[in-house]
């Protein structure tokens, strides 16, 4: 369940939700249940959801509050959270809901104390985790980034407070330095994306033209019959999703309708959804029929899937006489595994390949940014630094550039757990000769 609290809670929820009948949560009576769909920022559908609204002051936090429940597992919840954040919400700090509840006079003391114990345990664990993380190689990189931003801020601040002792920093040099840090942050965030897949789960779209055995393969991977399987092409009209664990990674497998020539209107709708699922997936599992030569349909699906970048090819029906020669040009770089959904042949290898591909971008060691909160902080730092770099050329006055660097450091501080106020002064005085 995702909870949104604050004066804009209903608006944020309405940006994410498409309620049945075109209703808006803001216009509905409080404490009523609403069914609908959650939509990601890119317009893609996340899942079916149920939403409740509580109006201030009759809520846990005494503010407007919305609860959105999805029936999916962690993967769906994470995506839902992302969508809510994209719609303008901010992640709550640990204990923030409780704090708001206390501040707004909602919680009794006994309740608050109980919650407090939980928060303390949680934040202590988080602090310990942060310390462990920072001790690693990635942590050193992060601290180096922070040091560099701090050093730039000290330069700017020294120029502002001691204009007669310190000359203005060079804009061009600072821009180069900022861009070097941006490159590092980009790399951390890229690695962070894979790290997030490991801790928060991945979404895999199973794609292929009709009747290559996508549903059978899904069932084989699940180990049980779930999706409806018939020999009639195009039986799977809707995306069917199941969550499994592959090598410790929570994976949400989405069986898509076959991408082919739409036979009827319903099928056309299903295909539009399939494209959406492919676009949203972290990895595409492209299924080809091993007993038939490539068709135009295969090429079309492959072209669609190739745009996703990361994928694995399953050559299904490998228990039948081989009829397939080669794979579509667009996905030639993807690993291909011969499997048979019917006999179970090759499934272990397929799973291993998928895990390898998902984790393959993680690289050595533990990724630095593995949780949404950390990624968000790193993104904030990056945005502020981009503002700074752009402002240097615009040119923004130094006091605004300082604001950007201050924002960047505050965001980095959420990753490193450090407060930078006194550090800036120390840096100024140790580097610049100031005074009468």
């Amino acid at each position, binding site marked *: 369940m995702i909870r949104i609290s604050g004066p804009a809670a209903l608006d944020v929820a309405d940006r994410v939700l498409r309620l049945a009948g075109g209703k808006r949560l803001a216009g509905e009576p409080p404490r009523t249940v609403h069914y609908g769909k959650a939509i990601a920022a890119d317009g893609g559908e996340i899942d079916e959801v149920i939403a409740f609204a509580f109006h201030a002051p009759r809520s846990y936090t005494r503010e407007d509050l919305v609860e959105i429940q999805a029936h999916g597992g962690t993967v769906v919840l994470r995506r839902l959270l992302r969508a809510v954040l994209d719609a303008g919400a901010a992640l709550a*700090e*640990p*204990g923030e809901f*409780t*704090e708001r509840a*206390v*501040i707004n*006079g909602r919680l009794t*003391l006994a309740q*608050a*104390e109980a919650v*407090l*114990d939980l*928060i*303390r345990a949680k*934040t202590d664990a988080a602090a310990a985790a942060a310390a462990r993380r920072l001790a690693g190689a990635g942590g050193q990189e992060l601290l180096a980034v922070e040091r560099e931003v701090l050093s730039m801020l000290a330069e700017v*601040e020294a*120029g*502002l*407070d*001691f*204009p*007669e*002792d310190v000359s*203005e920093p060079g804009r061009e040099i600072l821009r180069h330095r900022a861009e070097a840090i941006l490159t590092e942050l980009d790399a951390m965030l890229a690695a962070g994306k894979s790290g997030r897949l490991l801790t928060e789960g991945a979404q895999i779209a199973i794609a292929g033209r009709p009747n290559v055995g996508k549903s059978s393969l899904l069932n084989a991977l699940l180990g049980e019959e779930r999706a409806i399987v018939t020999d009639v092409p195009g039986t799977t009209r809707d995306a069917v999703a199941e969550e499994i664990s592959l090598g410790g990674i929570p994976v949400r497998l989405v069986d898509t309708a076959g991408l082919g020539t739409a036979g009827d209107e319903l099928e056309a709708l299903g295909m539009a959804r399939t494209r959406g699922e492919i676009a949203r997936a972290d990895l595409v599992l492209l299924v080809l029929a091993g007993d038939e030569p490539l068709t135009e349909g295969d090429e079309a699906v492959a072209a669609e899937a190739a745009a996703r970048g990361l994928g694995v090819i399953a050559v299904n029906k490998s228990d039948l006489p081989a009829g397939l020669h080669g794979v579509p040009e667009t996905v030639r770089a993807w690993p291909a595994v011969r499997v048979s959904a019917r006999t179970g042949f090759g499934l272990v290898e397929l799973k291993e390949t998928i895990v390898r591909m998902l984790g393959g971008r993680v690289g050595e060691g533990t990724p630095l940014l593995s949780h949404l909160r950390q990624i968000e902080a790193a993104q904030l730092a990056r945005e502020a630094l981009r503002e700074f770099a752009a402002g240097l050329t*615009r040119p923004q*006055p*130094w*006091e*605004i550039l*300082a*604001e950007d660097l*201050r924002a960047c450091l505050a965001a980095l501080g959420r990753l490193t757990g450090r*407060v930078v*106020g*006194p550090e*800036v*002064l120390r840096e*100024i*005085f*140790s580097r610049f*000769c*100031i*005074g*009468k």
Partner: protein
Amino acid sequence: MPREFDLLVVGGGHAGCEAALAGARMGAATGMILLDLGDIAWMPCNPSIGGPAKGHLVKEIDALGGAMGRAADATYLQLRRLNTSKGPAVQALRAQTDKYAYQRWMRAAVEQEKHLWLGQGEVVALLTASGRIRGVRLRGGEVLGARAVILTAGTFLRAVVHLGLEHHAAGPQGRSPAQELAESLSSLGFALRRLKTGTPARVRGRSLRFAEMTPQPGEELEQGFSFWEPLPRRPQTNCWLTYTQPETHALIRAHLQETALFGGAITGVGPRYCPSIESKLVQFPGRDRHQVFVEPEAAETDEWYLAGLSTSLPPPVQTEVLRTIPGLREVEIVRPGYAIEYDAIDATALRPTLESRELPGLFFAGQINGTSGYEEAAAQGLMAGINAVLSLRGEEPLILRRDQAYIGVLIDELVTKESAEPYRMMTARAEHRLLLRADSADLRLAESGRQLGLIGEREYEAFLARKERLAKGWALLSRTINPSAAVEAWAKAHGTAVPTHGLSLKELLRRPELSLPDLFELESGFAGLSPAEAEELTHEVKYEGYIQRAQAEAERLRELEDRRIPPDLDFTAVPNLSREAVEKLTRVRPETLGQAGRISGLSPADLLAILVFLRRG
């Protein structure tokens, strides 16, 4: 029958003058006692007032009805606007004042104040009764009774002057130190700490070769520090810039062990932003030169100040060192530079009103609180004076917020954070810097000044008129300008894109190339604005997004700032607080949750624990 006051101010420096003037103007029977009446508003270091953050403080003091801004405007020798290209919030005025004219101006202000008694004497003991301050005893036995006392002892408490390795008990420039007052404070339980500062040599102008130095002229400006008086035109004097040489550095290094600082004579902690030249050489060995500003001290003397050359070298060596510097080859020293050590209290023992927590009625302001600078001292003096009177009347104190004034930042940090060195105001300390423009100080504070009775009727009328003009100007900015031949001609003349559809004046003003005076032709209603007001509106528009963000942030934090912690709260009784948190909270005794949050080492969980506990009571 001893003399009785509502408020007695001990000391007559920059803190003392503001405290006494504020107290008297608020109607309290006020007295001011100092060691030497000739030293009222004395500037024992350089006669410079303002600069980034410090200039902001002066404008805030002025907006509240304090005296420093008017005094500086009336007595400047040179004015400069600093940081003009770096943004409106960090722009600052800096004045070289005539140090004697400044003292005369302030002495006249003090002497002309109706409710203000003035006297010379040394306070040797603080008198208490029933756990409150009751008055002071002077050398010679006289007793002055007072319901509130403000101590502004500056750098005089147990002061020791170091000239090279020699030292003797003395205040600034050899004045008498205050020994017994320090002992009296100790015996009342105040912890004292040792701080250090210093000053360069003063030299004779006729021995300087100005041709070898670069002139630093002043600027003709429209507005000075004061919001209330027009800036008088005064002839301006140049300052001069020169640099130390490799020979200078070699000579200082050769004599390093003879300085008080490196010879081991000094134990006090000096400020990082005001290091002696010997500290600069040690700290920045790679620098081959340091700048020296040669500044006039007053129109009526030929004494000059050497900014950048604070030193505790033995006086004979000082002459030798100075003579290695261009422009100073034949220099004659009239007063040698020296280092001074003095006692200061730990200001975390004070409430945000600057009143002692342990001894009600006793307030502290200025360098005795561990700050440096005339402006920092004056700001505290003003606030101590205001709050002493408010507390005598049993009224709510005036505590300025960090998003409201640099004064708020200054006092909050003084009473919350333990600082090892003398504290100097810097804009870097203000997290809400964009909201604290010097030029908007009156908009932020004049209402408070008026309510206190420190802003007169005439000034207040002028302030209201200014606010009205700004509001009208702001309203005019939403007017839409539609494309027309006239608008096209205007756009071309001002080098901006020709509007192709209706645009508000505000949208036009957002364009980087335009400022408000450019829009006068489009809207004649702007013509009534002063240049400063036009600038004000320009900033408001161009920075609207940043200002709104800053305001939202300040608003978010205010919840914590408004949540008060009772003064008698026993932190050991709060469940879930770490021992370190209890120890720090008990020492600093924050008055709000916001202040508690700024104590170093306290976590959000600690704050939540207090919050939860407070709800039980």
